[in-house]
């Protein structure tokens, strides 16, 4: 090998495959520069082996059976996550949040629409078999429809109807259509 060894090769010299190592060795015999670089990398390995010893903490000195019995708080959590209660909770919690959101929006809208829509102010009409459309309209109903209201008549029923609301109808008339004469 005439070309110098790459740094990547020299850094992992110990772990090179046999064939690659043979060619590197052949080059090292005639190249002091690569030999010096290799020596530098090997000094790093030696330095790392001089790292201070690390001792096991007391908790890890106990046998595995004791670790499992006493010292792993993660296991109960994981078991709980796999249990049926956890699955039900995963469904109920978002559902309750959605329901709460809907109720909140409904209450907010109800408070913004004013006093006229309160249930207490809603007129109550009593439907009897003898009630007529005219009588109901007289009592405050905005309209009476008898669709689907078939005999036999209800003996006694109370219906809560919403109060009449003002309706704004906007009609757009094209200028050309307004000018058109019939």
């Amino acid at each position, binding site marked *: 090998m005439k070309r110098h060894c790459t740094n990547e090769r020299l850094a*992992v010299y110990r772990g090179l495959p046999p064939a690659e190592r043979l060619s590197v060795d052949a080059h090292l015999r005639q190249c002091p520069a690569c030999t010096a670089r290799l020596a530098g990398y090997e000094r790093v390995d030696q330095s790392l082996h001089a790292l*201070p010893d690390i001792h096991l*903490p007391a908790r890890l000195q106990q046998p595995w059976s004791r670790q499992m019995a006493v010292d792993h708080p*993660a296991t109960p959590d994981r078991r709980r996550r796999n249990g049926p209660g956890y699955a039900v909770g995963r469904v109920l919690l978002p559902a309750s949040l959605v329901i709460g959101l809907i109720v909140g929006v409904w209450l907010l809208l109800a408070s913004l629409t004013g006093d006229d829509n309160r249930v207490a102010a809603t007129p109550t009409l009593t439907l009897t078999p003898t009630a007529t459309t005219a009588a109901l309209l007289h009592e405050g109903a905005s309209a009476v429809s008898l669709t689907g209201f078939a005999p036999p008549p209800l003996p006694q029923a109370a219906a809560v109807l919403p109060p009449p609301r003002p309706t704004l109808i906007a009609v757009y008339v094209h200028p050309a259509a307004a000018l058109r004469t019939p």
Partner: protein
Amino acid sequence: MSDKDGATLVSELFEQHRLAIFAYIRRLTADTSLAEELTQETFLRVFEARERLKQVTNLRAWVFRVATNTTFSALRRRKFYAWLPWETVERTSVQGQDVAEIVGMEDAIETALANLASRYRAPLLLFSYYGFSVAEVAAILGISEGAVRTRVYRGKEMFQKAYMRGNPR
């Protein structure tokens, strides 16, 4: 493999490798209490995978892989980007000949190692300290063998520079 066999094997793995795994995680995180916690979590993960242990050909490398993944996940989860405890940072910020005299050669080595980014520290430790082959380090870290060679080389270069700063004799 029956559950009992798997549990026995995990117990044996724990006895054989707990010190190496604890030291490895301690050197990756530079935090003793975190290393203790992550060592337990590592073997808990091994225990949870006890049914698959029979298919694992190199158990030692596999346990190191679990430890590496556990550690990196925990560090990402905690957004623990500062790998060095404050005392180490303060030490390394002091440059010059006095550092080695104050902290000694062992501490200078530890400090130089702690200065490396985790992507270089892990392959360097696995290859140079724990003696894994390039292929094993690649499997443990989930990277190519070429990437292992590059990271070991860069790790060694960075280590040399950091060590010379801390211990210029």
